[in-house]
């Protein structure tokens, strides 16, 4: 809940980067680049499938994906039991790691991985989910996205894009620039918040991939104003996004009630929510994010004198009703 009782200090927590993407998209290539170029930093890698990591001095731990539901009946509260154990033991060691990278299987749903950082209090107190990085193969991703699935079966490629904080469009040498532009437009319609980077052989600027956390969230929400009012998104996609922007100060109790109700009733459909909020009686910005129904907020820098206190929220998910979201959020303004 957005409270100020105990604002967790991001600096003391070890950042964790989650790498998702289909088999062959270039995850392992990116991982090897990170380990080579970040030589000297202590990085622990948790892997779910055999990659060919070419670096001997990184600690590589193999994980056996073990997903379970919490006992409160919400299917969104699925977490990764194997990660809780591995991360818990890593953090007990005297040698602290500078960063931890979790490489998921090609078909992994990123939600349980992300939710683990909210649900387990031991993990949450010592580690912060820095970013979900999704690597896609520019030539093949559309085929995966357009695959029709039986009712109730998720399209993993779509989920991996919807959950991403950064999307690396890899193997751009294999498609022409028109196709690339079209592809990026398509990706942006699914997830307008993720930073998009083009790459060949995963040759991205690693500063844009590691350690981007809260900074990234604040910047991601400085969206193109056109996006906030635009209504001409492609409606043929099952996953879209809605951004709302409202000036004024939010009443904390009303906001908590609204978010609690909204996220728990639409938890399955709302993949991610991010926002910057102006809370009544607090002169700091509050940065907010949620994975399905689990949410977390941090007090950010104070609002500047020349800055309008404006609330911005972005929802990524299915069956989002913009008018209803705007109306119900407006009711939270004090």
């Amino acid at each position, binding site marked *: 809940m957005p409270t100020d009782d105990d604002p967790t200090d991001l600096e003391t927590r070890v950042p964790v980067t989650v790498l998702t993407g289909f088999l062959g998209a270039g995850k392992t290539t990116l991982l090897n680049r990170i380990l080579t170029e970040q030589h000297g930093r202590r990085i622990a890698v948790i892997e779910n499938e055999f990659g060919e990591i070419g670096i001997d001095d990184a600690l590589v731990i193999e994980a056996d994906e073990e997903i379970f539901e919490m006992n409160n009946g919400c299917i969104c509260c699925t977490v990764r039991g194997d990660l809780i154990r591995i991360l818990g033991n890593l953090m007990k060691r*005297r040698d602290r790691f500078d960063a931890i990278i979790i490489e998921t299987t090609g078909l992994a749903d990123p939600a349980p991985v992300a939710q683990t950082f909210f649900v387990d209090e031991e993990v949450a107190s010592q580690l912060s989910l820095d970013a979900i990085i999704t690597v896609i193969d520019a030539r093949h991703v559309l085929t995966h996205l357009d695959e029709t699935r039986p009712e109730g079966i998720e399209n993993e490629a779509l989920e991996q894009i919807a959950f991403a904080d950064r999307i690396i469009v890899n193997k751009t040498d294999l498609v022409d620039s028109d196709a690339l532009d079209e592809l990026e437009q398509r990706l942006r319609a699914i997830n307008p918040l993720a930073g998009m980077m083009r790459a060949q052989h995963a040759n991205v600027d690693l500063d844009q991939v590691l350690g981007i956390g809260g900074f990234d969230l604040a910047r991601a929400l400085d969206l193109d104003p056109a996006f906030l009012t635009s209504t001409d998104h492609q409606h043929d996609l099952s996953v879209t996004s809605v951004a709302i922007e409202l000036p004024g100060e939010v009443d904390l109790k009303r906001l908590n009630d609204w978010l609690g109700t909204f996220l728990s009733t639409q938890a399955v459909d709302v993949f991610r929510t991010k926002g910057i909020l102006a809370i009544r009686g607090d002169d700091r910005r509050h940065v907010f994010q949620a994975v399905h129904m689990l949410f977390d907020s941090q007090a950010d820098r104070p609002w500047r004198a020349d800055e309008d206190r404006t609330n911005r929220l972005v929802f990524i998910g299915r069956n989002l009703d913009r008018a209803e979201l705007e109306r119900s959020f407006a009711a939270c303004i004090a």
Partner: protein
Amino acid sequence: MVDILWAQELDDYVTAVAWDATGDHAAAASLSGRVRVIGCTGTPVAELPAHPLGATALAWSPRAPRLAVAGQDGRVRTWEPPGHTQVVWEQPDWIGAVAWSPNGAWLAMGAGRILGVRHGDAETVRTYPRLPSTVTDLAWSFDSRRVGVACYGGPRWFEPGREADAAVAHFDWKGSLLRLVVAPSGKWVAAGNQDRSVHVWRLWSGDDMQMTGYPNKITALAWSPSSRYLAVGSIADVTLWDFAGRGPRGTTPKALTGFEHGTRAVTFSPDGDLLAAATGDGVLVWEHRRGSEPVAVVAPGFAASTVAWRPGSRDLLVGTDTGQLLGARFDGTQGRPADPGTQATA
């Protein structure tokens, strides 16, 4: 109140400490991979081969000076004085739990989703079909017939004396179990859970009850020697559930306080009068029937990772987050003001 008798180094987070049944030897395991056997005054007796990536669990046979140690390297070793060491099981997954049956005849081990049971000095270990999730803890029934496995979906019980591989009982419950402890009376089994609850079943009817409302996942859990109390470690208190009479259903537990940074382990003294908790603020000792404030704190300011009482004594063995191993003696509460919480008023 508490005298530190000795101190030594184990290099990294101490994952487990335990005394043998007679109190002649103790053992300690660390995430550095080191495992040390010591005498009752802290004298080093043996340094076992290291477990790469860390030693995770250890247990002494209740009937013989026989130690089982396990690690993230997937190995289980036994050690016997004066210095016989043997690898008894080797698995690709890390070993999370080892437990001897009360009669000392069986050694149960959990590697990933596999339960392995070794009988006596058998050359081979019997393995059971893969469980639905990783084995997080093991607990034997009082009569040594059944071993309970903690994993997702409630405890499952196996009878290694039988041919069949199937579980002989399963207390079906949708939750992720982290600890499993059987009451010394043999009547109850309690599980500490990821979802911040404690679940208790009556053996063998399976009647159950649940304690909820904790702010943390439950990994510190202990029965008193009389089986009357169940102690549950939380972030800033240890709650004590009273199983006397009709049991704790519908009651509020007593809260033992005096720390703020989490409980890692709880254990009752052999006489049942004292409760010790390894916490982020040191090891606290309570006279739990009297007050709710601790009567002593061992190593205040040190984060204690684990603690064990020496059988037949009031000596404590303490492991810390940074790898210290301490021996301490509790000298009673003489000279301390009476706990105001328990004073009778006229």
